[in-house]
């Protein structure tokens, strides 16, 4: 608006000097201004009004939800970096939604889930409380925390959808997301567990480090051959948090709410450990890969000897895609690895919330959970449902997939045995913040 004032001022000065010529010039500028205004008006007109939506149907009356959902288009916002996962979603859920429920699936790929979160928050801030553009987000942890704090998620529904009966909602791992109570405001899509990946053609399985202490020794003996993504990149934060658990004697002291004194005292050993290994990291620890994709690339190119995965079904899909070498294998530390669930959440202003519920319910179908777990279908994502709650043929089918995962996976029993829970979100944020201060910045200073 300031610029407009300046233009006017300019014209006035101008006019005072050449009153005669002002008129012609003004007209030309005027036309320009009019044109812009007209274009803006056309654009506003063309965009049309957003379709107003009724209040979200109650998932208790599932028939009503299905009826309301018919004809809707779900805008599913999810990380779009894996073509295999994208294809799985489009080709597995898309046709079923269309043929059985009359719903169109519009998968919106984002480079980072936080883009979708910001979209929702911006719309709510602008007062768009219904007919919003995001219907369903693939989400967990920090992003869930953000939207939940802002009261931006529909609550309760996840406990009431029909297939919620397959979900072990009594488990803390499911009903708390990074320590925050879920309260039915998101429904699980799958599960993940942090694993290391090595190349069996390069390293003998027996010489693998099996704890952070052993990893420290391994790094000292092989300088430049290890690194981790810089927190807050997801896998980087995981790597640091897991080290925090092990070096402070386990996860138990951290399961409650955030304790400043205990954290500062306990984490001192972690920063000592990370500072000590830092000079022997890739590029002497002067820089870190920004994300897991970059670390995978370093690993595939033979620049480092380890990368990470979150897929309980194993890394066969990434091997098939050529992202990881054929001889890559996942393994876990004896001292435990963090497992967690990831979810689907519906923003309060979602325009097609019924269709979103139908999809969230559909993904919990045991046969579709089995298909998602099988990496030959492109994903290898862990189960969101509990095997114990599934009966009959579905259970046999699930068990079969679990037993027949290709060699590029850690066995389910082994994963189960070393699984550790997530802790309160405050610990995560604090670890990320302190890593930045104690590791990244001190490295710059030193």
């Amino acid at each position, binding site marked *: 608006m300031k*610029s407009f004032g300046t233009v006017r001022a300019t014209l006035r*000065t101008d006019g005072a000097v050449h009153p005669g*010529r002002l008129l012609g010039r003004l007209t030309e500028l005027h036309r*320009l201004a009019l044109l812009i205004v007209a274009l803006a008006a056309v*654009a506003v007109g063309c965009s*049309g009004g957003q379709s107003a939506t009724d209040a979200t149907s109650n998932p208790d009356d599932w028939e009503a939800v299905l009826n309301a959902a018919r004809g809707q288009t779900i805008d599913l916002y999810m990380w779009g970096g894996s*073509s295999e996962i994208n294809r799985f979603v489009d080709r597995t859920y898309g046709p079923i939604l269309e043929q059985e429920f009359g719903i169109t699936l519009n998968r919106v790929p984002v480079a980072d889930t936080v883009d979708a979160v910001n979209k929702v928050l911006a719309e709510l801030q602008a007062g768009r409380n219904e007919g919003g553009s995001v219907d369903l987000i693939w989400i967990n942890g920090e992003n869930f925390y953000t939207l939940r704090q802002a009261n931006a998620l529909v609550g309760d529904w996840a406990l009431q959808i029909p297939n919620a009966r397959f979900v072990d909602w009594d488990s803390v791992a499911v009903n708390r997301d990074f320590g925050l109570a879920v309260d039915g405001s998101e429904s699980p899509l799958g599960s993940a567990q942090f694993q290391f990946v090595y190349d069996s053609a390069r390293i003998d399985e027996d010489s693998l480090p099996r704890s952070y202490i052993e990893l420290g020794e391994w790094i000292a003996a092989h300088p430049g051959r290890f690194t981790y993504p810089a927190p807050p990149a997801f896998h980087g934060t995981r790597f640091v948090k897991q080290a925090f658990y092990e070096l402070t004697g386990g996860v138990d002291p951290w399961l409650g709410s955030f304790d400043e004194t205990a954290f500062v005292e306990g984490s001192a050993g972690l920063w000592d450990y990370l500072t000590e290994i830092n000079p022997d990291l890739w590029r002497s620890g002067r820089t870190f890969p920004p994300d897991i994709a970059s670390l995978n690339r370093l690993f595939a190119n033979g620049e480092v000897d380890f990368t990470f995965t979150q897929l309980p079904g194993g890394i066969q899909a990434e091997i098939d895609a050529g992202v990881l070498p054929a001889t890559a294998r996942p393994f876990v530390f004896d001292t435990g690895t963090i497992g967690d669930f990831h979810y689907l959440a519906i923003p309060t202003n979602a325009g097609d919330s019924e269709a979103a519920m139908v999809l969230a319910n559909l993904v919990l179908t045991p046969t579709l959970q089995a298909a998602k777990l099988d990496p030959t279908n492109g994903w290898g994502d862990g189960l969101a449902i509990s095997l114990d709650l599934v009966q009959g043929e579905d259970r046999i089918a699930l068990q079969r997939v679990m037993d027949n995962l290709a060699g590029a996976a850690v066995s389910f029993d082994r994963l189960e045995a070393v699984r550790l829970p997530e802790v309160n979100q405050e610990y995560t944020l604090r670890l990320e913040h302190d890593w930045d201060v104690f590791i990244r910045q001190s490295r710059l200073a030193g």
Partner: protein
Amino acid sequence: MALIVATILLPLVPLVIQSFTRGYVFPQLVPAEWSTRAWSIVLATDGGTWKALGWSVAVAATVTALALLVAVPAGRVLGLRTFRGRRVLEFLVLTPLLVPAVAVGIGLDITFIRLGLSGTFWGVVLVHLIPAAPYAVLILAGVFANYNEDLEVQARTLGAGPLNVLRHVTMPAIMPGLIVAGFFAFIVSWSQYVLTLQIGGGKVLTLPVLLVSTASGGDVAITGALTIVYALPVLALLVVTSHHVVRAGLGVTGT
């Protein structure tokens, strides 16, 4: 000429190679495994590439047309008239290029949501005009600075109406500039990522938005293939327009 073509095309060669490989990693000099997997995924009819290409073409073409519509009169005034404050006006035209797009986008997003423009085709077109229009105005101001208005007067004296003057005198004279300005507006719109993401919100899913989300997965073969899909239309346009520019350059300009 050959050197120019080579400079433009050489960077694409590794991408083409990359897009036909699977697991092409250091220290392989020649890829160990060739594969059309990436292309079959990228070109699959249900993969989203074609839809993104459609959005990109529609948005960029509309932006180009609107930018020229604004730029021809604006460029004419700035190029032909001398008046106090012209420099200030020129600076104001440039200001959208000086402010980072992210800063503009965040503020505009809220406004656009209120106006119902967020997530719509016209919203994205409007926001692309912010960086695209200044280029077109500046180029055409340069063109009109070398334009001789007397030709129009002569044509009028010889009995031509305003439309005939426009068609037979003005347009041929400024055509090369018009094409270059249009080409710039097109490229600026074609390459917008941040503004498209903010205003388009995933609904208007242009190629850069698809490309960045794909690249975040680190599959170099697919990223390579998609990059080529992204680059080819602009290269084609460059070939077509450069031809026109050269031909038109032999015509009426150069006063």
